């Protein structure tokens, strides 16, 4: 804290991802110009979020309760669980409306080079869920990049001995794209993962 209120806010805002000093300055001055009725609810929303929001005890989705609404929903099938890196990934999959099972949020992805080891993620918790529950399938929906792939590989290796089916979401071409512009790895994976028609 510098004692200068504007400088303090700029300093705090730079802690957000993707916000550099220049953007922070712009935001701080913008907030200065906002009427109290608009600016204060932002601060209150942050306070409320930090007071009330927490991670679901079972799946580590964000919730205001002990257990999130998805885990509590009796209409969802409990024999499959979809593993994602972040709560934001869960929201995107929910929006597709085709998945009716449970989730497990890892809160990150493995990265050997950055020292993100399995114990830093919610992997042990996933193993425990599989051991206890009546899970028949674990669908790994980590990102299709190196960290996501390393995470998927690791999880599949420790889950398979438990006798549960482990699947990975398919790699494919983006809809609305053009094969000509697909890169060779994406294209190779799409051919490998082809489906019978």
């Amino acid at each position, binding site marked *: 804290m510098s004692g200068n209120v504007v400088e303090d806010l700029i300093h705090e805002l730079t802690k957000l991802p*993707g916000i550099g000093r220049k953007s922070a300055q712009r935001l701080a001055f913008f907030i200065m110009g906002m009427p109290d009725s608009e600016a204060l609810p932002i601060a209150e929303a942050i306070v409320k979020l930090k007071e009330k929001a927490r991670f679901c005890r079972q799946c580590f989705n964000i919730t205001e309760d002990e257990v999130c609404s998805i885990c509590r929903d009796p209409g969802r099938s409990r024999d499959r669980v979809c593993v994602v890196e972040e709560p934001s990934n869960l929201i995107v999959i929910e929006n597709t409306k085709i998945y009716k099972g449970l989730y497990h949020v890892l809160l990150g992805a493995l990265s050997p080079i950055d020292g993100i080891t399995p114990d830093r993620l919610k992997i042990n918790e996933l193993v425990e869920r599989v051991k206890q529950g009546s899970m028949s399938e674990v669908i790994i929906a980590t990102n299709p990049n*190196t960290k996501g*792939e390393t995470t998927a590989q*690791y999880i599949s290796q420790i889950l398979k001995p438990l006798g549960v089916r482990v699947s990975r979401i398919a790699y494919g071409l*983006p809809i609305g794209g053009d094969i000509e512009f697909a890169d060779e*790895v994406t294209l190779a994976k799409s051919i490998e993962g082809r489906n019978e028609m």
Partner: protein
Amino acid sequence: MLTRTEGIVLNSRKYGDADLIVTYLTSDKGILNAFAKSPRKTKSRFGSSLEPLTHARLSLWGKEQSLPRITQSDIIEPFHRIRENYHDIVHVSMLIEMLIALLPAGIPNSRLFTFLLNILHTVQTGEEGSKEALHLITRIRLLATIGYAPRLKGCGRCGKESLDFYPDSGTTLCSRCVTGPGSAGKPFMRLSNRAIHFYMHSIEWPIHISNRLKPATETIRELSALLDRHLTFLLSRKLHTSKFPVGVK
């Protein structure tokens, strides 16, 4: 200013919502950081070309010292088979971590570039089962290529034969040379003749030949521990990748 070069992606980190800062080992500019706009969007024109280990032809815009922007990146060899193999990616990550930690940015080293490409090809095509030795050899060779290999060929001061490695001297030392003010009681590791023999082979012979050697598990363990101590001393910390479980099957 537009520059063209070839690079191998060593690592990348997120920047902002969809941008990326990519660390390359380039063929003619050493280690270099560059910036890519929106590659994380699914429809990005960069495709998978910014994923770690990718060997690509690059066009960069801007000064090398001030984070140039990647304007084009065409895959020469993706090395995605390595990324899809858990053990391989953990081991190759260790090489890359060593490289980034020990090598200052911006110093050209074309031999190192060729060497890393060679390693990636060897790991990608290597047979499962003999990989442990290969990974050990590549670590030793990498250290030798960048001038940080421990010296195990006799006492580092007088040349007399010795099996005692002193991590804080980076060399084996004989009992005569190690006595003296400040030297007594320094930690050391006693190595086996077999381990030293294998080590010399790994340094002196080309990888595709030394890769045919079948060292005992004990030898691999011994030399891995030695490199671990050596690197911990050089970096004043443990490698992140050394904390990674590779034993899972």
